[in-house]
């Protein structure tokens, strides 16, 4: 029997190993079967680890294991483990990965083997990101997951895929490079001579960074991570990229990979750079509130293309996450973790369903749609559920996340809270409008024309199964958010305690 640490390693190794085997030329039908296993296993392991996680000392990393890759002299080693913050994110990655994988298995994409191969690499990278204690590998796995995204957008993408792939690549590489610089800065400035987050934390707690360094490194990390998470006005890649990306890639990227930056800010920047992050808090909050929430919210209202709209709405929701981070409090950060999980699940579900809608309407143009629900009630039900989740209806996981962020934000600035809450109204407007345009009212001419040629069918099991996984998770965390909040609260509370160490430095 394997130990839990080995299970964690296995979860990451499975998709990557499967990708390697497929790359070596496995025949297609075996490849599909292998991929199915490789998508399922990490999800099962993640659930198992979740059940095994000792919630009472969630601030410490559990399931630790270290593998040396030859850069031990530089303090780089593949150190895996999960703490209270990483655990829900890991679970999110595993679940969304499984859903995206199942959706891809039967998607009938051209050159399916390559598609699955890239998706498996992406999945492995995602799992690795959140399981890495070593921040070098945290970055490394992110990039590992990012590369297949570019190729998938470029090869299997939709409209404008070339421009989108190029823009996506350059933006995200720029963001990643900046954040890499920030991480290197931490490595060098901390004096730990190690990328191991535990050692870094200890070293900084012992020595401390001066205010100037904190401000600079914090700014660097915010800029880098901000680009990756589409902070306004560095967001224009997101709608374009998601508009063009194939469904599974969009699910994994928008759902999970994008959370890399936020996760990095919470897990690394906030505890290690308390002063630096507070230095930027107001600027970040203003950008997020007025840029991400208000401006992008209105821009979302003006979208006609369903996927573009989803992309913009995702950008808008990232604004809440940034606001939560700007609060610099346990409540804010905790809300962000919850919101990340919820948003990851809901946006993945929406992208999945958007593709399913496209299969039945042959269009993403909202103006051409209407009345689809008469033919496909189940699809409509799923879509409505996903929309309701994304606009923060209680019962879905997004609600407790948003609520917590708002509560935290009030303490930071009541005015900005009003702006943020106004965003909830805006999101309700575009969310419901999209659902209504697609599904309700009489059937549109375009739809009748398409249906005359291709009689529509309701969701079949290959679409239902991944959607159900995501929806079930959304509902579970919506009804029982404590499942996430408890370990996260533990972990954050502890880092708050370490931050108290820096309290005297603020007077400097």
């Amino acid at each position: 029997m394997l130990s839990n640490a080995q299970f964690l390693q296995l979860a990451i190794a499975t998709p990557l190993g499967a990708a390697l085997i497929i790359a070596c030329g496995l025949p297609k039908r075996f490849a599909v079967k292998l991929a199915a296993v490789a998508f399922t296993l990490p999800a099962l392991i993640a659930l198992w680890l979740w059940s095994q996680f000792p919630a009472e000392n969630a601030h410490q990393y559990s399931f630790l294991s270290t593998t040396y890759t030859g850069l031990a002299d530089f303090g780089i080693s593949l150190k895996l483990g999960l703490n209270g913050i990483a655990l829900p994110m890991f679970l999110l990655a595993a679940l969304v990965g499984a859903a995206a994988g199942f959706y891809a298995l039967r998607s009938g994409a051209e050159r399916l083997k390559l598609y699955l191969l890239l998706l498996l690499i992406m999945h492995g990278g995602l799992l690795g990101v959140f399981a890495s204690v070593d921040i070098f590998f945290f970055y490394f796995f992110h990039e590992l997951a990012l590369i297949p995204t570019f190729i998938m957008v470029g090869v299997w993408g939709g409209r404008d895929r070339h421009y989108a792939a190029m823009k996506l690549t350059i933006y995200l590489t720029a963001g990643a490079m900046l954040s890499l610089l920030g991480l290197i800065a931490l490595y060098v400035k901390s004096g730990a001579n190690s990328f191991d987050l535990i050692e870094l934390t200890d070293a900084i707690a012992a020595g401390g960074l001066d205010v100037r360094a904190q401000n600079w490194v914090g700014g660097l990390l915010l800029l880098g991570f901000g680009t990756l998470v589409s902070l306004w006005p560095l967001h224009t890649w997101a709608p374009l990229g998601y508009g063009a990306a194939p469904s599974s890639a969009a699910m994994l990227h928008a759902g999970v990979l994008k959370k890399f930056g936020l996760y990095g800010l919470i897990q690394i920047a906030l505890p290690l750079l308390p002063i630096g992050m507070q230095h930027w808090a107001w600027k970040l909050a203003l950008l997020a509130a007025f840029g991400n929430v208000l401006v992008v919210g209105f821009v979302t209202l003006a979208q006609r293309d369903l996927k573009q709209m989803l992309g913009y709405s995702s950008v808008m929701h990232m604004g809440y996450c940034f606001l939560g981070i700007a609060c610099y409090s346990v409540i804010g950060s905790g809300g962000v973790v919850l919101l990340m999980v919820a948003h990851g699940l809901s946006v993945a579900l929406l992208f999945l369903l958007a593709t399913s809608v496209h299969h039945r309407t042959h269009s993403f143009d909202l103006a051409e749609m209407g009345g689809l629900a008469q033919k496909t009630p189940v699809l409509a039900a799923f879509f409505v559920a996903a929309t309701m989740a994304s606009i923060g209806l209680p019962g879905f996981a997004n609600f407790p996340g948003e609520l917590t962020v708002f509560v935290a934000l009030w303490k930071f600035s009541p005015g900005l809270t009003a702006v943020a809450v106004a965003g909830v109204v805006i999101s309700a407007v575009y969310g419901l409008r999209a659902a209504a345009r697609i599904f309700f009212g009489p059937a549109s001419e375009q739809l009748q024309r398409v249906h005359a040629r291709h009689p529509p069918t309701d969701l079949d099991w290959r679409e239902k199964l991944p959607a159900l996984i995501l929806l079930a998770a959304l509902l579970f965390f919506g009804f029982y958010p404590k499942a996430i909040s408890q370990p996260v609260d533990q972990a954050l509370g502890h880092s708050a305690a370490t931050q108290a160490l820096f309290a005297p430095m603020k007077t400097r």
Partner: protein
Amino acid sequence: MHPMLNHAILVLLLPLASAAVIGLFLRRQGALAAWISTVTAGTIAAISIILLLHGERFEDSVEWLRFGTFSVSLGIKFDDLAALMLFIVGFVGFLIHVFSLGYMHDDPARARFFGGLSIFMFSMIGIVLADNLFMIFIFWELVGFSSWLLINHYHEKQSAADASKKAFIVNRVGDFGFLLGIIWCYYATSSGGAASTVNFTELAKLTAGGALPHGEWIALLLFCGAMGKSAQMPLQVWLPDAMEGPTPVSALIHAATMVAAGIYMLCRINVLMVPSALEVITWVGTITALYAALCAIVQRDIKKVLAYSTLSQLGYMVAAFGLGSTSTYALIDLPVATVATGVGAAMFHLTTHAFFKALLFLGSGSVIIGCHHEQDIFKMGGLRSKMPVTFFTFTIGVLAIIGLPFFAGFFSKDAILYLAMEKNTAVFAILAFTAVLTSFYMVRLWKITFLGETRSDAAKHAHESGFSMTLPLVVLALLSVAGGYSGVFDRLAGSVAGLVPEPDASGHTIILLVSLAVMTVGASAALLFYQSAATDTLEEKFRFGFSWLTWLKESFDRAYNYYVAKVQQRVAMLLNFLEQIFLAGLIIRGLAGFVGLIGYGARAVYTGSLHTYVFWFLLGAALLWAFAAGIF
């Protein structure tokens, strides 16, 4: 754990289970779904009666979410107020379930309908039982969702889709203020160094100890929630449109229970009220009552008339709440230094209104079914003989709403008018005038629908509805009569009933006279003006007045439509334009283009000519020399 707590939990979770079962397994088995939902509703009604009569009052909660110092609990506060509301919701809800069995019998999407009803029951009971503001907000939103679901039942109709969307969004606007108010309140409670809380009992304790800071703003923000849900001006626009839903839905949600949730919530948080906020609340309610009554006069659609009358009655309740004094009363078992009379009057009217408005809506549903989905009252007429049970019960409903003595509405309306007379003469005058209008349009409706000759084929072939539909009518008619008597209401409301203002002898006489007068004036005017005709005879006589009222009715919709089409959408288009052209285009693409241009420039220096290359070497040598010479 209190021994009756599990009953309350059961009452909360049963409808959720029913909805889940229907949603997951019974999508295609409409009949089974209907029965499961109805049986659930019956069980809820039974348990709610048990809980009401058992007399045990309790509260308990569990933590739902905690980050640092912020925690949200889910809990149950079962006091007399909750018991009364739970009974109304459970019992009226059950009757409407039964009615729906008949009404929705032929609907292909019956399962979805009954599933939606179950979700609604779950959400509404959640509001009723909630013990803190966060929990109320959770179920508040869920009620909005179930309302959306049910209004959108005939989703293939564009108007239904639009109406449901409108309802949800307008409610969200109200919730915007509500949520801000909750959060503000949450932080305001910790000003004294205590832990933040929004638990009702704790809030009551805190206010008893000393007023909360910013009380006025918190109260008004919280009232925003009620404005949305109870459709007060200026957020009333969604309610008339919501009549696109099936009639039982209108009866249950948009007349008897959900729209009353705003009133209920206000009564829950009455400890947070301050006089200046109450003043505002009073006027909002009063104006809504008047405006809605005016609009009701010009309606031709039977459900629309009832919808506006609902609006008007809700205005009454809100005004009643606002009129409450800040004198000390004992609410339940706690000393409270704030409104309470308003609570009593509002809840009293809420109760009676729930009975007679449900009755009226169900009656109209019966009429609509009987007339094969004809809703224009001028195409009906003479239904008295064709649908005797419906006619009889509907008449009782009308009498109750116009406040004929010895019917339920008479007592509750009197209480409100008395309160107004005591507190604010202007409000009293307006409310009294509104009562005139109420009896006018209700009698008009009644007369045109049921009396005279039949005016359309649909009406000619009208027939009485089945047993499942008439039974609820009869039961509700009974309650519409009996609900106002203190013997009944005291039983239902317990200590809340004690808060209903009791006029002294002289006040009693004045109020009695006034209310009789207004009822008589309104009713007789209607009886006088209206004869059985295919067109609105009054409209032909007072064309100007009618068109003015119509304009008044539509002005809000026009304003909102103008906002949506001309302001919101244009801002969105403008920002989108800026985003696409300016940000993504000019700045980002421009930057990329600029770099590309420099790239072309950099590429152009590779001229291919050896001589230029040698110059580069000269440059390099000179540069190195300059460094050596210490020039840099």
